[in-house]
Structures are given as C-alpha cells and as structure tokens.
C-alpha cells in the first residue's frame, strides 16, 4: 500500500483529501506545515508527498527544496491555487514532479498520484 504524506495547513482540506485517498487504498499521513512535513518525511519515507504552498512556519516551496536535499528521489506533487503559477514553476524546478490545482477534483488527484506510485 502506497504511503502518501498530505501537507496542508487547513484541517478541512486535509480531512477531505485523506478521506479520498484512504478510500482508494492509500495509507495517509498528515502534516500541518513544511517543517512538520520534513520531520515526517524523514520518519516515514512516504512514496509521495502532496504539498500545499501557502502555509505558516515553513511554506511548501522551502519544504520541497529541503526534502529534495534529504532525498533527491522524493516524489512531490504541489497543491496549488490559481494565481500561484510562478511559485509552482519554482517548485517544479526545485524538484517537484507535478502539481494539482485547487479546488481538487478527485479524479485528478487520483490519476496524478497513480502516475507516480501506481
């Protein structure tokens, strides 16, 4: 079972996403910000990270760079809102694999994840 680390500061978004993923057979861990994401990444080595961009403490962009330092093979998908194109571009250049745009469409999330972890 593939493990997905869900990083978002909004509990509502995490809850929604986690539900979708667990229902589709993924094991889900959650983190509230970039800092926590790094800590959890090291501990559980997830197969994929879904990373929000705008978060307190440490934003998603910084977290991508940090995680990539720890594990160059990390698979990270950015969760972006409209209007964050430049940040997403930077994240992709920093090593994120892809991005999905909020509001999430279940099919899109699932197909994106499937592409990377099967």
């Amino acid at each position: 079972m593939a493990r997905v680390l869900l990083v978002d500061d909004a509990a509502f978004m995490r809850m929604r996403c986690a539900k979708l993923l667990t229902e589709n057979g993924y094991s889900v861990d959650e983190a509230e910000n970039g800092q926590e994401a790094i800590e959890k990444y090291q501990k559980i080595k997830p197969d994929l990270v879904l990373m929000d961009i705008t978060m307190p403490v440490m934003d998603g962009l910084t977290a991508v760079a940090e995680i990539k330092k720890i594990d160059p093979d990390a698979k990270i998908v950015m969760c972006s809102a409209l209007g964050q194109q430049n940040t997403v571009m930077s994240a992709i250049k920093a090593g994120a694999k892809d991005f999905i745009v909020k509001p999430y469409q279940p099919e899109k999330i699932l197909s994106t994840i499937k592409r990377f972890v099967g």
Partner: protein
Amino acid sequence: MGLNLDASPEELKIFLEEVEEHFQTLEEDLLRLEKEDEFNEDLMQEIFRASHTLKGSSATIGHHRMAELTHAMENVLDKLRKKQLAVSRELIDILFECLDHLRILRDEIINDEKSDLELEGILGKLSAVQKSGGIPAGRVDIQPPSSKASCQESERKIEIDLTWEEKDRIHNAVEQGLKPYIIRLTFDVEPEMLAVRAFVTLMALSELAEVVKSQPTADEIEHEKVSDTLVALLLTEGEEEKITKLVNELPSIAGCEIQLYADDIVRKTDSSAETVNEANNLSEERNQTGDQAKAGSAVKNVSAKKANRTVRVDVDLLDSLMNLVGELVIDRTRLFQILGNLEAIDEMDEISQDLGRTSIHIARVTTQLQEQIMKARMLPVENLFNKFPRMVRDLSQKAGKEVNFVMTGQETELDRSIIEEIGDPLIHLLRNAVDHGIESPEERRAQGKSSTGQLKLQASHEENHIIITIKDDGRGIDPEQVRQSAIKKGLITEEQAKRLTDKEAVNLIFMSGLSTATRVTDVSGRGVGMDVVRNNIEKINGAIEINSVVGQGTEFKIKLPLTLAIIRALLVSIGKSVYAIPLSTITETIRMQRKQIEFVNNREVIVVRGKVLPLIRLKSVFSGAVSEEEQKEKLFIVVVNLAGQQVGLVVDSLVGEQEIVIKSLGKYIGDVQGISGATILGDGSVALIVDVSNLIKKAAS
C-alpha cells in the same frame, strides 16, 4: 434555495470552524495592519494566508461566491505583500467590507440558503484598488475545466521548424534505431496555470524520450510565452504506444496528435491507430473509477479520523443539567436539615450515623457536580469581546475621534447565558464612551491631553463575581449638567436636585428619559438609553457603578454573578414566611430600636453613621399594612445597595445564609412586584426571592 455544497455535514463543521478562525485572524490582523506604521512582513503574510486558505476551502466545497470574493481579496493582498500597494485607511475599509461580506456568505452555509448579497460592488472596489497598483491579474475561473486526454491521429502534418543541427541529430538517431515522433498537445487548463502545466508536461515527456525540439521551448515556457498548444519532437527507442500512454496519464490535456516524423511523408501505421483507440478506452475506464470513488466517498463518511477530544452539546441540555443539579442542591440542604433534626431528637444510632456519613458524601459530590456543570457552561468573554475592536474602530472613525482601545482579561469565563445578556449593554457603553466620553482630537489637545483617547475594557474575576470595567480618559460626566437636564425633563424638582450629592447626580443618567447629549449623533444618543443598560444588567443579578471625574474620564464597573441559576442569599423571615435576599446586593445588616426611626417627608428613615437611609418594611410590601400592635421594639434592617442607592429593608428576623436555586414563578403566577423568583428550602417549604432593584426603584419614586 439551498447551496448544494459538496461537503458532508461533518466536513462542513470543520470548514465552518476554520472559516471562523480565519475571519478572526483577518479582523485582528487588519486592525493591527492599520495601526502599524512600518511594513510588517509576517503580519502581511498571515493576512494573505488566511484569505488564501479561505479561497481554497470555499472553492473545494463549491461555494463559488465566497471563492470569487476571496480570490479578488487575495489579488489585492498579494500586491500589498509585495509592496506594490500601500496600506491606506480606504483600503483597510474595503478589506473590512470584504470581511463583512464573507460573514454573510458564511451564514449562507449555516442557513443553507443563498442570501441576496450582491458582490459586484465590492468586487469592483477590489479590482479598482488592484488596478491602481499595477497590472490586473486574470479573472478567477472557479470551475476547473474537466480534462480528458485523447490522442487522435491527424491527417494534417504537424509542422515544426528545425535547424540543420537538429535535422542532423534526427538523421543520426534514426540510423541508430531510434524513432522520431512529432506530437502536438492542446491543454485544457486554467489559463493562469498554462505555463507551468506545459512545463510539467515537457518534463514528463523528456523522462520518456529525448526532446529534440519543442515549441514553445522550455525557456519560453518559463517566461510564460505559451499558447494552449505544445508541439514537441521526440526521439525514442520505444513504440508510439508508450508515448500515448504517458499522454493519457498526464492531466489537463484536451487533445493530442502524434505522427511519426519524416521530412517528406505524413503517414501513420495502422497499428499505432489501434493503440490510440485502446488508450482511449483506458482513459474512459479511469474516469469510471473516478466516479466510483466519488460515490464511495458519499457513503463512507464515517471513516474520517478525528483527534478532537471535545463534544458539542446543545445549550438546552446544559440548561436541563443545571436544573437537575439545582434539584440536588435543594435535596442536599434538606438532607442536612433532616440530619440536624435526627441529632436533636436523640443520640444517633448506628443507622442514623451511617445516613449522616452518606449524606455528607452526597453533599460533597453534589457540590463538585455543581461546580463542574457550571464550568461546562462557562465561555471565555473573548467570544464577546472579539467583535469590539472593529466596532470601536468604525465608531471612532465615524465620530472623527482618535481612540486607542485596549482589552484585557479576555480569558475570564462567564456563564454563557450571562454572556448573551451582557453584549448589548457593553456595546452601548462603548458607544457612549467613544461618542460622548472621548473628546475630539482638537479639544483634547486644547486641554493638554494627548490627542488619542484611551478606552479600556477589562474583565476580571473577583471572589464570586466577574467584574467588567469600561474606562475612558474623556471629558467625564458633569453632575451639574445631569442635574439641569433632569430638572428640565421634569424628572426631579430643583429642590431635590440640590440635595443630591455629585455621585447621586451622576447616577441620574440611569433614569429613563434622561440624556445629557446635547446633540443626537449617528452613533449614540438615540434609541436605548442608560436605563435599559441598567435594567439588563440587573435582570441578571448584576450591578453597575459609575466613577466619573470631570475632565479626566469615566469608569463603568459592572459586577456580574458567575451563574444565573444558583446564588448565595440571606434568608430572612417576615411573619411566618421566609424570603431570600441575594447576597450580592447586601452591604450590611443592622439591629435597631424602633424609636430610632425618624420621619422625613412622612417616610420612615434611620440615620446610620450620619447617613440618612430610607426604610422599606417588607411586611407592608408583601402582606399589606402593618398595625401598630404588630410592631416589635427591636428591628432587623438589611441594608441593600444597587448602583450607589442604599435602602434599608426592615425584616422580622434573620434566618441565615444559604445557596439557593432560582426557580421562576411560572407563567401562571406571572410577574409579581418586588419578587424575582422563588426557591425551595431545606424543609421543603418555598421562599420568595426579593427583587431588590425593583424595591429600590419603588422607594425612589
């Protein structure tokens, strides 16, 4: 009409909680933003984040209007964050207006009904502000277009310009057994995200094959020189099938054409066409799984995990719990009384002693239960205070005053029913302070004060009470002015006015019909007056006191009980009945001889430590006139005090102090003058609770 939101009730609950948090953050931060002179990056980021998260969440549940507004807000906030816009009062006003609108949109969710709120106005303002600072950003497209990749064979030749070197590279590669494909993809994606989508797609293609050339190039994509089409020339060892498979997996691709690249021919093999069809089927299948997932999520709401250790309880349930505890408190008192009787009759036998011990234990548990349930009903006053900073800001702006509003003790807890009752009086007092209390900046400077007025709202715990004070350093209340106003309105005679001490005169503002404001303003001086404020506070067994010094400011001190249901009271007897007087109103009890009573204006008074105290005989209030013979030589007087007014209540004897549970008299009996309720005593008899404020008013008239 319902909103048809895409969220389960469980999710909505969390959504609403978070929304409320973000509103609070926005409100507090916007106020701070306005105050701070220097650019505060952290603060700006926090505001931006709150608005941004609201946008994401609201779009997710499908509240399009909320998403639209937060998106527009975010555009402005982004400019602020990047210092492309400067903070101005107008801007803050607009952002506050947004917040008000957002609250209405939030209420739409709670009521599951669309409001008639129009967003055009505010959206126009936001975009005007945003444009004033630079280039406008694209409009939000909330409904993301659905994407379905489907590769098609193309009859037209896909063109791409190649340099000689590139053509050479292809030539060499073909000789080495690689196949050149040219692929044209059209994207179906939010226009704002087009560039990054194209970039990701190009990256994915390059993982599978060598990208000899693309149009636009990676560099151009990075600089957002994109259209919705991407053409790329690929070299790969594998089959076309591999590429189509990848394209089918990539999101947001609406169309895909693929051809074997050749300088002179445009041809496709039959086998590759079949593969494409297969791929089409595949993508359809995937969509079906998606639908199934959707259906599944609707059914399996329950599985969401929760770390929350709180339970939401209906207020009614808390009320009825409190009521039941009240009954227990009564029984506790009764048990003690029965025990006392047993002890009095005889030496206690084994069984009686056992009963005694059990009673004591039950009493202790009851007391703890009572405390715990009272705690469960407590809320920090913060919930109430939170809306005040914004209110004071708006008021002072309207009145042209400069006010520094400080709140302390927000964590102080109060029974929720009291919090509900105290809101309006506090709003009224704060309005008064801003409008009448604090002077205009010019006036303040003329008096040698700083031009900014201080307004302080403080809550604190004091013994068994909560004290809320509202203090300003404004002009204070002029007792002389109040006297004149009261005379003019015919509330008191000139004679009476002269006899009033300054403090008593100031207290006149609590009389109905009196307003010292020489002019009625937009803010206060109309509608409910101070009399309503006092009535509301006294209704919940509270008391209000004024300390005012002309030129230096006014302080209102509100004393509130911790709970409405159980109070401490002094039991007194009048004839055969027992009455309860709330302890919070009592200053002292005195024993006096009948001959010490004097008469002023044909009314009974006594002199206590040089002060004249009007007397009220409870017996004559409650059971009609008192005959001469009935009068005793020794009198017990309970001195009660409300809002600075003192009255002596004459009773037959004092019974004792006790915790009583307030019960209403019920609709059947209705309102009785001088009685605010009833309670059940230890022996099962009923005692009436004296309505002290009513009696004092009666004595004054």
